[in-house]
């Protein structure tokens, strides 16, 4: 990492108290940001570089996605070149202290090296910032209630002051709590994410919100995914992919609805593909039969 560069990482739980409070800037919307004069909790910094993690709402509920906001602040006068890894995710590394006190190392994400895009090389302009939202559920499940300690780091970003538990990686600790499941909280989480999908001006930001929505591990999210699919064509691929992964009757209902609404659209193409995937994976015979009928009826 170049000397004279500042990076900040933020970890944010998605909840009623945090959504819409953080401005996710694309590079084009980056705004000058004052450099903190001193380290804060969850922050490491050198002369011009700071890395920090934070959770705005430290009290989450079960099945609520745990979202990491990554922010890089470049206080230097030169571009900051940042390698976040393939698809801007592979270079993030995490360790997790579970509620039972056991510390686990979370495997890094690995994607198939195929397809368009996915470069993790980001350039942050001088005196500007870059922020990104990561859903930690993409890395691991948070299936227990209790107090967690997340240790987050970035491979290859080694030149910062901080705790070094592995060579070249500096982990920062973020503490948060997952409480019992609460439908009302999850409903608010989903509603806020749907608003973000609708209202955000950035393509990336819309998809980040959609990605968070798909990790709401509760059937309550299905209805919001349906609304997202209708409201914002730019998240079609993300939402349908989410429904494919989720599977089950509710997801199939949404996918069939999408096909029926616009049978000659790209959304229909992708929805059919997702349905075929679910059909092959599912062991629910009536569901498989229903999908086959739909695919036959809408075979183009």
């Amino acid at each position, binding site marked *: 990492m170049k000397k004279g560069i500042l990076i900040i990482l933020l970890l944010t739980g998605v909840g009623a108290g945090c959504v819409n409070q953080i401005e996710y800037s694309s590079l*084009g919307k980056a705004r000058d940001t004052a450099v903190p004069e001193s380290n804060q909790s969850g922050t490491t910094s050198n002369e011009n570089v700071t890395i920090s993690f934070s959770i705005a709402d430290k009290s989450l509920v079960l099945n609520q996605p745990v979202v990491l906001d990554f922010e890089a602040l470049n206080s230097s006068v030169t571009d900051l070149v940042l390698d976040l890894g393939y698809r801007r995710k592979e270079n993030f590394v995490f360790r997790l202290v579970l509620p039972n006190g056991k510390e686990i190392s979370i495997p890094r994400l690995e994607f198939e090296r195929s397809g368009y895009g996915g470069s993790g090389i980001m*350039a942050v302009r001088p005196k500007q910032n870059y922020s990104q939202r990561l859903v930690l559920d993409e890395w691991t499940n948070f299936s227990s209630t209790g107090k967690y300690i997340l240790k987050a780091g970035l491979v290859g970003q080694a030149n910062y002051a901080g705790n070094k538990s592995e060579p070249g990686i500096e982990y920062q600790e973020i503490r948060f709590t997952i409480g019992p499941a609460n439908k009302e909280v999850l409903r608010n989480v989903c509603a806020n994410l749907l608003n973000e999908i609708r209202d955000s001006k950035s393509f990336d930001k819309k998809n980040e919100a959609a990605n968070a929505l798909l990790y709401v591990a509760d059937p309550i999210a299905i209805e919001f995914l349906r609304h997202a699919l209708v409201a914002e064509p730019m998240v079609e691929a993300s939402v349908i992919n989410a429904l494919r992964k989720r599977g089950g009757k509710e997801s199939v209902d949404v996918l069939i609805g999408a096909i029926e609404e616009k049978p000659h659209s790209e959304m229909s193409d992708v929805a059919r593909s997702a349905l075929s995937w679910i*059909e092959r994976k599912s062991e629910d015979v009536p569901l498989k039969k229903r999908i086959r009928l739909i695919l036959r009826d809408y075979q183009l």
Partner: protein
Amino acid sequence: MVGSYYTLEDGIEAKLLLNNKGISRIEVIPIIYSAAGQELLLPPVFVEAQSFRFIDLQDWASIGGPGFESGNIKLFHLGKDLVLGAQIYLTDEAQSITFEEKLAEIGEFDSQRLETVWSMPSNNAQVRVTLTNTTDAPLDVTGILGKKPNQTSDPRIFSLAPHSTRAFDIRDEFPGSFSFLKSEVVALSLEHCGSANALVSQVYIYEKNKGYSNFAQFSNPADGKSSEYQGVGFQIEDIGNQKFNAGIVARNVGPDNSVVTINIPYTRTDGTRGNIALPTVHLSPGEMRSVNTNKIIQRVRSESIQIASIEATYTSAPGTVIIAAHSNSNDRNQVFRLPMTDSFAFPSSTGGYPWFIDNTSSTHIYIKNDTDLEEDYTVYISWENGGSFVVPRKSIAARETIRIDVKKLRDDQTQDVSGGTIPSWVSGGQLQWSLRRKDTLLDDDQSANLSLMGRSEQIDLTKQTVRSYVCANYCLDSAIAGRITYSEGPIEAGSPFQYHAFESTVNSFGAPTGERPAFGVNWTSSNPSVATIDYDGYVEGIGSGSTYINASWNGDTYEPFDSCINRPVEFNSDGKLNNCQASTVKQSKPVSPNDGGSGSCGSCRHGQTYIYDADTLNVTAAPCAYPVNFRQVGPAIDSNGVLTFYYTWDSSTGTSDTEVDKLFACELGERVDYSGSQNVYYPPLPFNQLAPHPNPTILSHSGANPRPQPDRHGNGGFMAPPFEASYTATQIYRWRCPCKDNNQWHISIGPHDITRSVIATGFDLYKYTITKLGYSATIEPIVFSQNRTLSSPQITQDTLRSTAP
């Protein structure tokens, strides 16, 4: 105002500084009295607004003729309280000796009992005392000399004719004083039964052959308002090769035992702060001692200290302990005197000083926060013809001391809040500073108004002279007006724009003290559908139209307020008049008696004024930015059978990164359709049926940077199990933007084929080839072994999702 002593004898140069901090010219009527008390009324002198001037007292003494070589001064003016600062400088440049005396305001002090203590630099030092009778009646003054630990001389009575000045060497007037002056700590007590303002006195300590000059500060124990002293700006760090010794002495002038605690808070050159806790000193009544300062020396040797101050507290009643402090170079030629101030008796969170730079000297300003709260302060430096240098509002941490070197600001061409500098030809002017309340403090938290203390020092390292100057303004600066920056035309929706708000202040005499960015501004937009604005004044244009941007905030104001008006006369249990300050409590500072005087009832009333300004902001729709010139960068790269293309693009608004970043709302990517299938949801063999390849495959990202982006065509999942096959997919690169054609897709490149094939090249030997746009990549050989595993130079079993045929 009265000054106790001037002299032109023995090569001494005497000058009078008159500093006008107000906005009007001040007429000053001077009277000088000869040492014998002969009066000479002089023509008035004028001091222009916000300026200072020096009077050579030789000129005035010459008018008086013989007998006026020494004497005292009285000044009259009709300006507001504290608007005029006056100080006498006595200088013997040849001996590097200098003394200063701030003129006292008649009616603001009680001289019936005066106490002082000082440290003797050596047995050879001379001590000269001046006693001046400021009244029209004769005055008898009783003096008692003291030495460490608590010995006192016989009383000595000095008879002073009206307006006369008696200047004498202690050795000449106090029998047996020789032994006293051999002590390292000496004290002098004065008492008289004249009027409260009858006596002004100074003690001068000097060694002509060393260039050592110091003076002792008198105080009346009855004027004490707290049991603490502050010394602002203590020179303990080295200057060049010169090392400094600190001298701190204390005397108990009260009836009870007392324990003195002294701390030296300091700031290192790296900005961090520390503290030196000196050993406590136990003083019985009448006892005097020097404080062990070895810890200061040790700390200076081990750390890089930039600036320090003194904080002293004692356990007995307010005013019952007096403390003197100074530091001197090892050769005793350079002496830094440090006035020790009872900040409760002289609350002064603002100040106005002259500054001047000649060839070798400069003015340093010290400001110290003597509370446990972080505060803000402002500094305004002015010079002739209206020039000014405005330091932005800054924070000063609890117990922190800051130093402003005006010469350094000028020579470094440091920029002020608006980018201006102090011209190199400017050599003098005025400096005003003021505390600014933190917005987080409650309005009625009056103690927050009284947190800072200040002092200026004129330092000449070549001539090895140092002069100190302290002069408070009556009240803190007040905000009187504000404005915002206006939009100079319509802005495009989505384009960044920031409003700024500025606040203008004046000192308590009405003189301007600069315009700075305002704090705590409430920004609003009358039409959020056109533009929104955040707490920092950042505007986000939403849609076409006009909106009214309004900024408002509360500015602090201060005005003189006499809290004693209509207050009944009260007497304390000791029979003394209970004036305003007498009722104050140490831990809660007096309710803004910010007058800088002693015994005055004057105070300042804190209020707020509503400041606002507004602008009409027009927002126009931003031109639609969409991707153009989507193109391949360089040839495709074959890496172990993975064929990678790189693509870049521009924006319709331009090719720079800034313009391409405007594509943040656009979706840019690929769609790949796998053909030849009678059912789109089952990609045909040899494509891996269980691999998560949706058909079509859609990959997208934001159109904003970074550029270029790769497109990798891998082999995973295609070749297992190996047998001859060929498969073609159709790819398009495409984009869409919400602002362009109702978010419809546009093709950048394509459609074109991506063909993957596996052919047999021998027994159980295969070759994999991928081809696109004239480029191809191969893996060869792929070996299908007897145990039904695959091997090749590039492929491991793990990369292949093997599936039973």
